[in-house]
């Protein structure tokens, strides 16, 4: 049975919510910004502003040039999240499998449920009607329906705003022929340029290309591209309750024009490192790969590099020191820096349960004998081959964290399960 995937995309979301909340803004070109100042950027433009070519991410000064009547509105994230919760509640009533892709986008697998509502088109109309009644007349959504996420998003984008469209399988061939690869979700300018170099401009040409060639050029992603070119997309929906773990934690900051000095950037970087470390501790992660970068001048190139720590860390000082190592790798030492950022990746979970020190007695000796005999493995199944100089036993007596070179490792992957072991260190 072919899947029926629905992509719900709220139109000019933040701007529409502002127009809903404040009727005097309706029908007017508005730009939602972080702070309504000239240095800010437009994070969302209303339909009226879009007609004047005001785009998301455009600096305010440029947006004002494009649309002199533009009304700037300070964004209200709590307001948008509150409305998102409400539209997600509505969508939950239509599909068991729902992926919340972003604050204003969601995918629904309605393969089973569509028939009960008289088909996917009727269902989409019902959703749109409920949005209008329960969220407000200004908050509209465009709904694309197809057999996969990529095509649902693609067909929806062609019927914005406030549209509903269903991609029939008979229409697929024509769509593949007419769609430039750059229109497809996930194909950015770099991949588009690489495909262009080998003469692939449309989805059909992508499907006709050799699978081996695409795999060689783009790795596993090449296989996905080939499938898309063939009109097939089996990408699964990630249910909203399965929030994937973060891949990295980062913070960045734009510097005001009067503070664009490299030394000031270093001070800000120090603060950002602490912020990153705090967030990692709150999320329960440590990381090994530290990426640091800055933008030279106000519109200059972005310079960034990364380094790998010997041990994972969630310490702001250690992250900052790694940043200094990274900065040493960058040959440029600009006078003016407009943006600075740091992120930590290669994350591992940490354990925050309180631990007791493993006593230096027979128990440790017994464990070390077992290690020497090759009988001990850590939690992820890797053999433990170095004897322990000490260890921290978790409060519940189930895990032991090795101490090496005087440093206890609280990494979940390196812990040794002692509850089940034949060398019960906890019981003496």
């Amino acid at each position, binding site marked *: 049975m072919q899947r029926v995937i629905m992509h719900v995309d709220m139109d000019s979301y933040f701007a529409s919510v502002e127009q*809903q*909340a404040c009727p005097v803004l309706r029908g007017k070109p508005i730009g939602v910004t972080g702070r309504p100042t000239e240095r800010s950027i437009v994070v969302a433009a209303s339909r009226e502003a879009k007609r004047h070519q005001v785009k998301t991410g455009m600096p305010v000064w440029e947006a004002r040039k494009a649309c002199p009547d533009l009304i700037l509105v300070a964004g209200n994230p709590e*307001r948008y999240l509150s409305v998102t919760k409400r539209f997600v509640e509505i969508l939950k009533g239509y599909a068991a499998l729902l992926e919340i892709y972003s604050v204003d986008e969601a995918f629904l697998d309605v393969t089973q449920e569509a028939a009960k509502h008289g088909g996917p088109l009727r269902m989409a109309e019902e959703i749109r009607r409920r949005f209008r009644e329960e969220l407000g007349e200004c908050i509209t959504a465009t709904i694309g329906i197809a057999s996969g996420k990529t095509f649902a998003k693609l067909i929806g984008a062609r019927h914005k705003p406030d549209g509903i469209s269903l991609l029939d399988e008979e229409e697929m061939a024509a769509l593949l022929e007419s769609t430039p690869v750059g229109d497809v979700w996930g194909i950015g300018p770099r991949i588009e340029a690489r495909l262009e170099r080998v003469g692939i401009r449309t989805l059909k040409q992508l499907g006709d290309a050799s699978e081996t060639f695409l795999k060689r050029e783009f790795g596993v992603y090449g296989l996905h591209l080939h499938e898309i070119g063939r009109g097939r997309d089996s990408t699964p929906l990630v249910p909203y309750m399965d929030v994937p773990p973060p891949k990295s934690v980062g913070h960045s900051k734009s510097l005001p024009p009067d503070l664009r000095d490299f030394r000031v950037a270093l001070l800000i970087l120090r603060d950002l490192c602490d912020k990153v470390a705090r967030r990692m501790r709150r999320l329960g992660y440590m990381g090994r790969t530290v990426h640091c970068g800055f933008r030279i001048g106000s519109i200059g190139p972005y310079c960034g590099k990364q380094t790998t720590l010997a041990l994972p860390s969630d310490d702001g000082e250690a992250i900052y020191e790694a940043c200094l190592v990274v900065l040493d790798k960058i040959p440029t030492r600009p006078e003016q820096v407009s943006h600075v950022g740091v992120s930590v990746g290669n994350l591992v979970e940490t354990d925050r349960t309180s631990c007791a020190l493993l006593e230096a007695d027979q128990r440790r000796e017994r464990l070390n004998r077992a290690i020497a005999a090759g009988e001990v493995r850590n939690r992820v199944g890797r053999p433990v081959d170095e004897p322990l100089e000490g260890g921290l036993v978790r409060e519940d007596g189930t895990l032991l964290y090795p101490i090496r070179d005087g440093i206890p490792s609280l990494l979940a992957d390196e812990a040794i399960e002692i509850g089940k072991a034949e060398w019960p260190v906890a019981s003496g």
Partner: protein
Amino acid sequence: MLYSVNEPIDALVIYRRGAPHPLLHAFRWKDRRYDVTSTHLVHREREGEAACLVYSVNCRDETYVLRYDIERGRWTLEAVESAG
């Protein structure tokens, strides 16, 4: 134009079955009753520990922004937005 008010008010609300929040029917400000003619948006916000509902409503031609502090059961008129 938004005029900040921030004054406590009395509110007349309806708790309709199944509605996500109480419906604001009318409020009294400076000894005058204002009947809500349309509700544009109600959203939830947090003020420290306290959860609030923020109402954007119209009473005839003027838009009013009101805040309901759920914990304390207090209503405040935050702002008046006049089309003129």
